[in-house]
């Protein structure tokens, strides 16, 4: 009798949860709140329309970003379960220069965009990645990776914008990484959760199980880690997406477009736009193309370089990895360098 109860609980509960959820969703389908606007006074109906538009934009960015976040968290789980710390330590460059330059190019092997790169970087830090390398990777990987290079090439062709984007990203990410190599102790920059295991759990033995777990168990562990991280990072993604959607729905775009030709102002505006729109770096080249005819080329370049490094959603996710002061530097350093580079490009290329 007790045995039967056990089987019932262990086998049926998971499937029961599934069934309950399917039922809930299908039930929701029939009774969705249709035609809100029709029964409301005009002022309120306008507000509902705005809310509906905001929801559409919010869900749009979320749906677009979720697969990439998922990929990043899966990569993070993969690194945690299958990458050995000791083996990785042997491969890592020792000097600040090597780490910063290497970090900028690491994206070629981990094709992630700015949503996925944050959980992955945090995991790599835990595995002992040096700070300058991680910082350079975090900033450069969303651009210097095969997918984004292909989409930029498709949008702009192999011209000044394409090479400018790659070159500037590499330069800014490496320089920022290098600056961080002088920053001293990792513990002062990173949150405890992102620090290498030896720093925050030094009392715990690294190899807790003498027997190598089965592959199936390893994969399950990897997926569970991915779920946990999807929720931890996903929270910041959702907040960021919501802010970006609200900005888009409530602030008129024309307020920005009036200043498209100033050598410096246009760069500032496009950088602001990149942050506000928070578009995934895998597709932002196509968006930038829409501005290429009205805005200065330096400002379009700044959009393409800064957007993948810093935007609303990635900034919020940074706060899960770095201390607040470090996040401020992570934003300000690339920002200043991008503004400078964009303006110089404008003056040099004649706008």
């Amino acid at each position: 009798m007790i045995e039967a109860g056990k089987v019932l609980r262990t086998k049926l509960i998971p499937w029961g949860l599934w069934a309950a959820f399917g039922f809930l969703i299908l039930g929701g389908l029939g009774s969705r709140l249709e035609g809100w606007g029709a029964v409301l006074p005009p002022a309120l109906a306008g507000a509902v329309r705005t809310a509906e538009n905001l929801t559409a934009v919010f869900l749009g960015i979320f749906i677009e970003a979720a697969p990439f976040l998922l990929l990043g968290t899966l990569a993070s789980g993969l690194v945690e379960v299958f990458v050995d710390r000791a083996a990785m330590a042997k491969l890592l460059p020792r000097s600040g220069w090597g780490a910063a330059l290497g970090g900028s190019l690491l994206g070629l092997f981990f094709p992630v965009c700015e949503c996925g790169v944050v959980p992955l970087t945090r995991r790599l830090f835990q595995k002992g990645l040096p700070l300058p390398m991680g910082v350079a990777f975090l900033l450069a990987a969303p651009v210097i990776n095969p997918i984004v290079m292909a989409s930029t090439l498709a949008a702009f062709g192999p011209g000044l914008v394409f090479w400018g984007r790659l070159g500037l990203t590499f330069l800014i990410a490496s320089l920022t990484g290098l600056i961080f190599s002088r920053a001293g102790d990792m513990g002062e920059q990173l949150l405890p959760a992102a620090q290498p295991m030896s720093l925050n759990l030094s009392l715990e033995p690294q190899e807790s199980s003498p027997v190598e777990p089965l592959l199936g168990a390893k994969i399950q562990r990897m997926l569970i880690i991915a779920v946990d991280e999807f929720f931890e990072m996903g929270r910041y993604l959702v907040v960021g997406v919501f802010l970006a959607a609200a900005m888009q729905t409530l602030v008129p775009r024309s307020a920005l477009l009036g200043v498209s030709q100033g050598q410096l102002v246009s760069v500032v505006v496009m950088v602001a736009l990149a942050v506000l729109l928070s578009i995934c770096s895998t597709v932002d080249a196509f968006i930038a193309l829409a501005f290429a005819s009205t805005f200065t080329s330096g400002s379009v370049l700044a959009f393409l370089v800064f957007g993948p490094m810093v935007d609303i959603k990635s900034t919020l996710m940074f706060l899960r990895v770095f201390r607040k002061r470090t996040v401020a530097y992570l934003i300000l350093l690339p920002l200043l360098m991008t503004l400078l580079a964009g303006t110089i490009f404008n003056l040099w290329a004649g706008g």
Partner: protein
Amino acid sequence: MSDHRYAMFQGLITAGLGFWLLLRVWDGTILFYINQRFVLLVLLAALGLLLLAQMVFRQLAQRRQSLLTGEVQPPHAHSGAEEHDHTHDHDHDHGTRQASHLMWVALPLVLGLLFSPKPLDASAVANRGISTNAAVSRTAAGGMVLGIPPEERTVLDWLYAAEDSPNPAELDGLPAVVTGFVVREAGMPADQFLIGRFTITCCVADSAALGLPVIWPEAEKLADQGWVQVRGTVKMVQEGGRWQVQIAAEQVEEAPQPEQPYLFP
């Protein structure tokens, strides 16, 4: 929140998001949110979410079973300053399992269920502005649009046609049947309106409204933002050295919103 309960909600929300995305792909309303190029990616993500949910549920069941057979200690709730040992099999960063994570990640699901899938409304033009030339990002090869019969060309196709045609003046006089929403901008002549559509390159966040000027004596009487179908002939006008497509309307009829309200450049 106890690990057990947290994991259960995690599973439920993950499964819910997966199911919701699957439904949107199934009934086609996913195209209210993203460009069609990304549908496959979203489908894979939905399946991935369901797989993750299944993993969570499976681990919950395994935990319960080993609990019943007495293999491990009961999972502790991470509350208070209790000293805990790492004998049981879990690896999470302590203090990261909070109810607020669950609530935020559930927000897309809640909004998705609360508001029925709806594309961006024409009222958003007021905020985003509308353009009468195809200065939008373009992924399709140039010149393709010239192979489309004139009556089947969309707002976007006509703008491309004016751009691609070696001699844009030749488009003059071609028949046009175009569907879109009505936009009346301040300062427009009384016999003109724009017939507009949103274009989506990636997701709704980058939507840009495009419009063709339509000449129609009763333009003022049209309901702003309503969907119409315009029948007429193309009129090519030169504005500042650039060819602009206009439509001289013979008939303007109310029309239902197309199943796919956006155009994908």
